């Protein structure tokens, strides 16, 4: 398999502070890649570099085949992004949100129309096309936000703690969507604080104090650390951290 994200000693320094120290990893096409770490471990900084929002201090990285130093505009066109805030406009309807996000990614009008119908059908929201997003239940909003983040068929979607504050049943349903997306070839790069979710990932990296302390499939990690759950693996690694989270 060809890697869609490839980093080599990718680092970011803020003055004397090293937020990310020589990160080297690859993420394959269609993979669900869990990006774990305590608060302050450097997850957000790494993700921002990969999204083309932040220039690295040193090292190399390509995302969807584009260089993070020189081709950020092309990277932006190839990725989707969703944060725990869901990032939908409350005062716009479901269809208007889809149309807007499709529009800023430069999709043509007919393409947006087709995609809207498709998407509403998938989510079972046909009746709610004209409903304002603020009137939707939280779980629906979250699913809609995810679908909107891949409305332009990106190669990679970055999910920044996408299930924060959502109940376990809804989280489970949300992961069904993630699996469906991965099956269709979208690479999923996800950060989370929920260790049960880490179990759903193909591979997991755990960052501690700006470096990648472990990177493997959940099964291998558990075996390697002699732990029963990912929770124990994470605790084993994270408690060695010297940096305080924020």
């Amino acid at each position, binding site marked *: 398999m060809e890697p869609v994200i490839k980093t080599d000693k990718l680092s970011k320094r803020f003055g004397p502070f090293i937020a990310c120290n020589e990160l080297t990893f690859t993420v394959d096409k269609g993979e669900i890649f869990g990006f774990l770490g305590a608060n302050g471990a450097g997850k957000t900084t790494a993700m921002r570099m990969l*999204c*083309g*929002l*932040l*220039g690295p201090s040193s090292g190399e990285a390509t995302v969807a085949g584009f260089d993070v130093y020189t081709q950020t*505009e092309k990277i*932006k*066109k190839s*990725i989707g*992004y*969703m*944060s*725990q*805030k*869901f*990032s*939908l*406009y*409350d*005062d*716009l309807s479901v269809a*208007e949100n889809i*149309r*807007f*996000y499709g*529009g*800023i*990614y*430069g999709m043509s009008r007919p393409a947006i129309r087709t995609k809207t119908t498709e998407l509403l059908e998938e989510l079972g929201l046909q009746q709610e096309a004209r409903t*304002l997003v603020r009137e939707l239940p939280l779980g629906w909003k979250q699913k809609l936000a995810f679908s909107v*983040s891949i409305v332009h068929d990106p190669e990679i979607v*970055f999910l920044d703690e996408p299930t924060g504050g959502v109940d376990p049943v809804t989280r489970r349903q949300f992961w069904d969507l993630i699996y469906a997306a991965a099956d269709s070839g979208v690479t999923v790069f996800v950060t989370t604080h929920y260790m049960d979710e880490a179990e759903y990932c193909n591979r997991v990296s755990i960052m501690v104090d700006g470096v990648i302390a472990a990177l493997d499939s959940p099964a291998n990690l558990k075996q390697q650390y002699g732990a029963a759950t990912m929770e124990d693996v994470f605790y084993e690694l994270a408690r060695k951290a010297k940096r305080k989270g924020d």
Partner: protein
Amino acid sequence: MRQLVIFIRKEFLHVFRDRKTLLMLFGLPIAQIVLFGFALSNEIKDSRIAVVDYSKDAVTQRLIAKIGSSPYFNIQRTLASADQIDAAFKKGDLKMAVTFPAGFGDDVIHTGKATMQVIADASDPNQATTITNYLNQIVADFNTELAAGSGQPMTIVPSMQMMYNPELRGAPNFVPGVMALVLMLVCTMMTSVAIVREKELGTMEILLVSPFRPVYIIISKLAPNLLISIVNLFVILFLSDIFLDLPVKGSFLLLVFGSVLFIMTCLSIGLLLSINAQTQQAAMTGSLMGMMLPTMLLTGFLFPIENMPLALRLLSNLVPSRWYFIIVKQVMLKGLGIGAIWKELLILGGMCVFLFTISLRKFKIRLQ
């Protein structure tokens, strides 16, 4: 470009969905104009006046009686000499003093011409304007009566003099003031709130990760507010023409040009505020305290800047509405051309370019 259109359309949707705010935005100027308009048009009755009659003849007696019998005036006292007028005003409650010079009646009868002297208390300029108008009316009536009696044209001219506030500052002042206030409010507050809201919602992150250009975000945010402001501008000008009899005397185009400069300046200030504010609440408070108060106090339409202490006078130079206020007054009320306001236009233009440039740069830096 199509992306920009889509984004701008979204901004308009935000504006139209928020009915309450929209109502407020368009209701505000109308309410202000109507409020001030009716306050202005109120009748003033029984104004107390003093009379000095050096002539003491049949003509002055008749005219004094006519003035005294009108519902608008109440002749409170008759003074022996004009020197007493000042003291009488200082005692308060006197609104006007009328002086007939010696030989007034003779002049009227023999030459058909005479001048009476009128001094009005203009510390409340609205009142002064109204009552001097009443007096003019009465004198004009009297002229007609005399002419009908003698068969020759009579012209008694009241020579008006304003006390305390000779230029009658205040009367038409509020229209430029309302314009400055409303535009400032819409542009600064709405712009900063609109941008901060995206931060609060978390949608700003998505926009930054998307290929959409930051400068487009700014343009899209400014577009609806620019339009609302221009509509408001026309509503105010229309209302003041119809209801307050204050048409645009000078070049309409010049006024609109000055207004757009001011609007752009306010939009840039809103942009700057939004960069520092983290919550909509903070943005709102920032625009209210930071912009509304200086606009109200240091523009010159509530308190004349000339009478302020030096520190405040210097400070007022930094308030954009101060310069806009002058532009509107000169063009709209006095009908002056670009020659009279080029300095103000230049200052406002400079502020606009300066503020827009730094807000644009700061906005970009924040994105890094």
